[in-house]
């Protein structure tokens, strides 16, 4: 990693040059919610002016740049009683600006799933390799809990990361590509003061979290609580609308569909991001549904995020961005569901038995 500083005006010029002739996306205010709250999304940008660098958080994550909501896996053409399959992995170069540490951590986790498993995805790899990521730090929102997940900082998975230290950005340069671009602009060695400002900034961020979730030992806890009535309590609120999974930066479950062209001369095999909360997620051939109750479906979403991955891969797949909580109309969010489970067990007065004495 190379560390440099750049003035915000010079940074603007750098971004301008970068996005002008490239396919670039950055945070933009798309609406004003009730109560005057700005709503941001990653939108196509052609100049630095179009980017809201001081945004809070985007409503939807940056996941769909790597895992599109609907994606052609292959095309088939039929001719003379025979067929041919065409598979394309090419992805055009893409620049993503303003990703938060949690967003980048989420992509790093997707790397684990999509690239480091037994069946690496060439579709994902093409997009991942051809995407230039510029991260930016931010002060947490009241409901962000990425610090509980230890995802409030990130040290890989980006090309360039910018920490806001007042009039300048403190740059962590993590790729030769980023460095060779930046060399053309006025960047400086960080001074003693710049380093102090960076440490201060990190401290401020670290101490600004208002929401914490206790995730230590959560996998075991979830195992014990498999039959807890808490699941159906939250399930009764769940609309099974899949909004949580769509905005989530790490939910990657999908379904595969075959679609014929109307002229029957070709077809495509598509994957379609799905959600374990949707009614027919666990429906199998013959019509049997393994999870007909929304409480069960909700439970398995939590199991996937907080148990399965922690048990198998030593990390929970949630980054603590709380996008699911914000998108949920029924106000179902990880903090409340997990605290509810913990409280139920930890405040249980029926089966109080003392721990064995130390010998």
């Amino acid at each position, binding site marked *: 990693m190379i560390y440099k500083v750049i003035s915000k005006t010079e940074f603007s010029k750098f971004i301008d040059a970068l996005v002008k002739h490239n396919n670039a996306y950055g945070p933009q205010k*798309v*609406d004003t*919610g*009730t109560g005057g709250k700005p*709503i941001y*999304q990653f939108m196509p940008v052609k100049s630095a002016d179009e980017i809201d660098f001081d945004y809070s958080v985007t*409503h*939807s994550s940056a996941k*769909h740049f790597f895992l599109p*909501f*609907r994606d052609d896996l292959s095309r088939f053409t*039929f001719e003379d*009683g025979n*067929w041919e399959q065409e598979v394309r992995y090419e992805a055009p170069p893409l620049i993503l600006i303003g990703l938060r540490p949690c967003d980048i951590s989420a992509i790093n986790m997707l790397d684990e799933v999509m690239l480091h498993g037994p069946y690496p995805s060439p579709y994902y790899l093409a997009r991942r390799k051809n995407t230039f990521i510029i991260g930016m730090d931010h002060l947490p929102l009241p409901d962000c809990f990425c610090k509980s997940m230890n995802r409030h900082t990130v040290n890989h998975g980006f090309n360039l990361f910018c920490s806001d230290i007042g009039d300048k950005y403190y740059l962590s340069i993590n790729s030769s590509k980023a460095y060779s671009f930046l060399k053309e602009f006025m960047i400086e060695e960080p001074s003693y003061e710049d380093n102090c400002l960076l440490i201060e900034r990190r401290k401020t961020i670290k101490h600004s979290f208002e929401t914490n979730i206790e995730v230590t030992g959560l996998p075991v806890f979830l195992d014990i609580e498999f039959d807890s009535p808490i699941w159906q309590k939250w399930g*009764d*609120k*769940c*609309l*099974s*609308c*899949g*909004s949580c999974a*769509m*905005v989530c930066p790490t939910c990657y479950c999908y379904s595969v569909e*075959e*679609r*014929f*062209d*109307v*002229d*029957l001369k070709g077809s495509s095999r598509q994957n379609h*991001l799905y*959600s374990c909360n*949707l*009614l*027919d997620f666990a429906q199998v051939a013959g019509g049997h549904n393994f999870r*007909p109750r*929304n409480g069960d479906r909700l439970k398995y979403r939590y199991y996937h995020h907080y148990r399965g991955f922690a048990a198998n891969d030593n990390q929970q797949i949630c980054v603590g961005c709380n996008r699911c909580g914000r*998108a949920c*109309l*029924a*106000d179902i969010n990880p903090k409340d569901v997990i605290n509810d489970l913990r409280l139920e067990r930890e405040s249980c007065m029926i089966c109080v038995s003392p721990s064995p004495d130390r010998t």
Partner: protein
Amino acid sequence: MNHLGFKIDKVKIGSFDFTCCEGCQLQLANKESTLPAFLGLLDIRNFREISSERHDDYDIALVEGSITRSDEVERLKAIRAQAKVLIAFGTCACFGGVNNLKNKIPQDEAVKVVYGDKKVETMPSMKISDIVSVDLMIPGCPVSKAEVERIVVGVVTRSPNNLPKYPVCVDCKQKLNTCLFDLGEVCLGPVTKAGCDAVCPTGKTPCLGCRGPSDDMNFPSFIQIVKEKNLSLDEMQEKLAFYNGFADYLDHES
């Protein structure tokens, strides 16, 4: 036609309109880029929007509109007797649609408002399944041509195809739309069957539920959400009643 060694038969189809705007049938003549290919799958026996020929030997009947006159009942029964598969086509046929709004007032009053003193025979509006059995529903006001194409292709190639079971929110989130509840609106997206590509919320217009309820939708939670957000329950009721797709739920609640 031959497709990968399978013999493909054109679908002998008849399309019939009852009380409606014929907008759904018109959709079938839209989407010009694939229109010739689409018509290539069909043996049109009776379809006044597309052909002036009239034959009565169709296998599949698309029935559009709701039933509001006694002669329509007889005509519908005759279509049912001929068709191997009867498809309720569009929101009016599936649920009664906008026409059902007139059921809320006395029928002679409704006639007077629209036709003045002219005598018109009418009766309360009914959906197709109130009168004959329906094999498949393709809801939508209007229907989505892309969805109809998928269904017809599925029939022709004998491959499975289903309407989505999940609600509109899935498609809406995939379009990166701002949730209309966040803008202070009551939107029926969370309880309405998807498949429309969330076209209304994408245009910042709340969903009015033209495709009817999504499978196993959570109505009690939906009402609770509208209440907790201090949005108008009257507005919610009005929207739920608009296309009559949620009649079963409204009856239980009131």
